């Protein structure tokens, strides 16, 4: 059984490698986005050396790490699912002797692996050359960080799967997906670190799963001084992975009762 899932990871990995041209422009796009954030934050800092709990150097490093982590955990599982539900190919998938959600997860992971090799690693090098990024040299930090972004991938993919399942109820979810993407980008701390949000917003965001996707891992590696220890990050992430499992499985079971194949 696990062999089949492993094969799915490998297949998706190879498919992504075939279209690697997209990734070269992708790296440039990430550099452009990091740049946009970097210049804006540099202007916001102005003559201040420190805002909230970060120096400008930490902020630059944080932004680069956050965007590069995103290039790994980001995927379009939601859109793929929505297409498969609408064009009816889901029906075939459900007949097959595997768990559809697991299949999607594995495909996402295969994609993540290829993104990591082609995208995150070279992207991080490009970003370090372009912007004053200060990365830690402690290998242990990097090992922990890899574990964290793996959990970020799980969390983000689970949110994507839940969003994709909404197709059962709404049929067309293009708008919803765009909203989800924006919310994840803002609430996860990709654009603004959580510690920069005003008090009330910050305490709300701390009770949502999104911070565990970007803010906690990136803060950890950027070496922020606040109470971000590796154990704390892992704990919050694992809690949310478990926590999201419940609605995911529940929606999957109730949604499949509603399957009707449009034109299949």
């Amino acid at each position: 059984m696990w062999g089949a899932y492993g094969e799915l990871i490998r297949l998706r990995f190879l498919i992504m490698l075939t279209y690697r041209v997209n990734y070269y422009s992708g790296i440039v796009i990430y550099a452009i986005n990091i740049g946009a954030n970097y210049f804006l934050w540099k202007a916001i800092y102005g003559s201040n050396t420190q805002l909230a709990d970060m120096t400008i150097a930490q902020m630059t490093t944080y932004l680069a790490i956050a965007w590069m982590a995103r290039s790994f955990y980001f995927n379009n599982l939601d859109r793929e699912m929505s297409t498969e539900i609408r064009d009816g190919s889901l029906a075939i998938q459900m007949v097959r002797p595997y768990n559809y959600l697991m299949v999607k997860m594995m495909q996402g992971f295969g994609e993540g692996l290829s993104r990591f090799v082609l995208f995150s690693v070279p992207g991080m090098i490009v970003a370090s050359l372009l912007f004053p990024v200060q990365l830690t040299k402690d290998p242990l930090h990097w090992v922990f960080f890899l574990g964290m972004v793996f959990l970020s991938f799980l969390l983000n993919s689970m949110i994507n799967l839940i969003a994709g399942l909404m197709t059962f109820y709404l049929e067309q979810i293009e708008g919803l997906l765009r909203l989800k993407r924006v919310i994840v980008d803002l609430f996860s701390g990709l654009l603004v670190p959580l510690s920069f949000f005003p008090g009330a917003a910050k305490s709300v965001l701390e009770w949502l799963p999104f911070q565990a996707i970007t803010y906690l891992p990136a803060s950890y590696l950027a070496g922020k001084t606040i109470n971000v220890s590796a154990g704390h990050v892992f704990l919050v992430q694992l809690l949310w992975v478990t926590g999201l499992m419940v609605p995911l499985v529940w929606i999957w079971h109730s949604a499949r009762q509603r399957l009707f194949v449009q034109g299949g």
Partner: protein
Amino acid sequence: MRFDLFFEYFRIYIQTRMMYRIDFWVEIVTDMMFQMVNLAVIVVAYKLTPTILGWSQAELFFVYGFFMVPYSFFTTFFNLWNFADRYIVKGEFDRVLTRPMNSIVQLSFENLDPSSLAGAVTGVVIMYFSAQTIGIQWQLLDLVAFFVSVVGGILIYAGIYLFMISLSFFTDAQTGIMPLIWNIQNYGKFPMDIYNKMIRVLLTWVVPFAFVGVYPAAFFLRRDGLSLWLTPVIGLIILSIALVIWRFGERSYRGAGS
């Protein structure tokens, strides 16, 4: 311009969208929320500092609001983000060539996206409220300037993106350059002072996105009286270049071979 055809395509658009009503409204609402999220970054920033390089929060909001207006008019008529894939790789351009209308107009009508106009409404609302905060005294000239800069902005977008999709005639595949340019475009929403010299030159003279956002907006903020009037000039220059490339490209189109 064939107006009867425009309305026919518009009717088709409405019918298509009304198949999935909820999604239509969700899209409009999410577009607005997307803008709110971007503005949220600015709000958070101003909680930490009273001014960013001499610009107040209301001024940055105003620039942001202005930026949305020409762009949303442009995307209503230019919804060709997957042009290379759909028309070149899959060869649908064959069909476009057999139609009596000019190929660009045909493409534009086929892909109308009037829901984008919601962005213009949001943009004007943001401009209105931030102008009140700043206390801008509106004059008749501002109205003329607004019209000129929006039209000019549309021309600039049309020029840049027409140029980009023309390239796919020569490469016969998606180049990945469109999303790249789209991301650079967002640099035009902020004052040029925040960027370094190289990026400033790039945004002014190479891909002049400064002219669809901060330069014309600075006119209404009484910061820059001149740049706004250059917008339509630059727009016309780029669009002319793009049209020439398009003609060449169209001639070298060979079909998908199926």
